[in-house]
């Protein structure tokens, strides 16, 4: 037998079983890797926060193509899996910020100032939300953590300053309840910026940290 020299411990009892076992285990390895790896990688890719097609303006991030036929396959799969209906571009444009202008994660224990001018729009709304962009419950505060352009006070040059804090603040106050991380969601409704001129050229207000309680 030419193969006898490969088995120093003696010939195997059943000469054909080892290569077959090897083929089976190799096939199982290939299948496990392909199916398991493929499924897990899709799961991870869809769970990732940063997606393709994001437009970042300072701390504000928007996904203008999200939920449209022009979106990339990952956004399409994410929309289908979450079952969410997105705002149309003609209706408005949604931005979300989970960091301040210096790149630090937003925390409900800190006080921030949102300062600057807002782009032209019929109106805008701003609210503090959890990671899934749902407004935070007021949790005992006298008002909900939301503000819109019709109730905001402006300076003479049309710029705004909004205090994001747990403590009541004169002027524009976005009352933030509880502790933990938060996302600020800014939606511009019926804005000419969404269609033609290009979203990346928009100027959005800055988010500055004033101080932290803890």
């Amino acid at each position, binding site marked *: 037998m030419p193969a006898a020299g490969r088995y120093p411990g003696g010939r195997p009892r059943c000469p054909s079983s080892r290569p077959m076992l090897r083929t089976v285990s190799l096939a199982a390895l*290939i299948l496990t890797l392909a199916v398991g790896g493929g499924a897990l990688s899709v799961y991870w890719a869809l769970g990732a926060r940063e997606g393709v097609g994001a437009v970042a303006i300072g701390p504000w991030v928007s996904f203008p193509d999200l939920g449209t036929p022009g979106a990339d396959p990952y956004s399409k799969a994410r929309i289908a899996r979450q079952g969410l209906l997105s705002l149309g571009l003609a209706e408005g444009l949604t931005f979300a910020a989970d960091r301040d202008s210096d790149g630090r994660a937003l925390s409900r224990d800190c006080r921030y100032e949102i300062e600057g001018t807002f782009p032209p729009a019929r109106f805008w709304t701003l609210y503090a939300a959890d990671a899934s962009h749902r*407004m935070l*419950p007021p949790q005992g505060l006298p008002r909900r953590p939301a503000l819109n352009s019709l109730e905001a006070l402006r300076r003479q040059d049309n710029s705004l300053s909004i205090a994001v804090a747990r403590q009541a603040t004169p002027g524009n106050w976005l009352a933030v309840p509880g502790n933990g991380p938060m996302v600020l969601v800014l939606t511009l*409704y019926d804005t000419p910026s969404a269609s033609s001129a290009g979203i990346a050229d928009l100027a959005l207000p800055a988010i500055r940290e004033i101080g932290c309680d803890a």
Partner: protein
Amino acid sequence: MLRQVSYAVLVGLVGAGIVHIVILLRLPAFSERDAWSNLAARAPLYQVARISDRPGAPALLQSPDPFVDAVACRFDLTEGIAHLSGPGGVPFWSASVYDRNGQNIYSFTDRTATSGALDFVVATPVQMTEVRKALPQEFRASVFVEAPLEEGIVVIRSLVPDESYRPEVAAFLDGIACRSVLPEPAGLD
């Protein structure tokens, strides 16, 4: 042996890539948690349902705005064109047409509408040519949305700037009619 295993790992990784792409592209068609199914559990076809965010219920709108109330209506264009109408008279409303997979096909605001009233028709390109041939009297002032789809969802959002507007907006949203119309040839008069 080592060469065989590394070869198998390589083949497995290539297979993983293929499976990744196949799952990704088929996911929208297979998803059972999509917006259509979510709405189907709330209201039958052609029934206007409030979809404002309720705590506990699965969210339906991406970034649900606390200042916006919304209604949705599912339609099926194989039964006829879909006609939506409402009184208007609110500070702002906007409408979006979504396909069966929840993708935003077309959107517009109250600026597009005549006198701010909600009145629009969703039709397939074939139905559109039929309707254009003899425009029925009731669609004279309607906005026409041509959409190459059979089943779809219409969502109408309306702004509630503060609590005092809420009854007004609720009356507008609850007054929206969503119905299927079989276009009939107009009379000769």
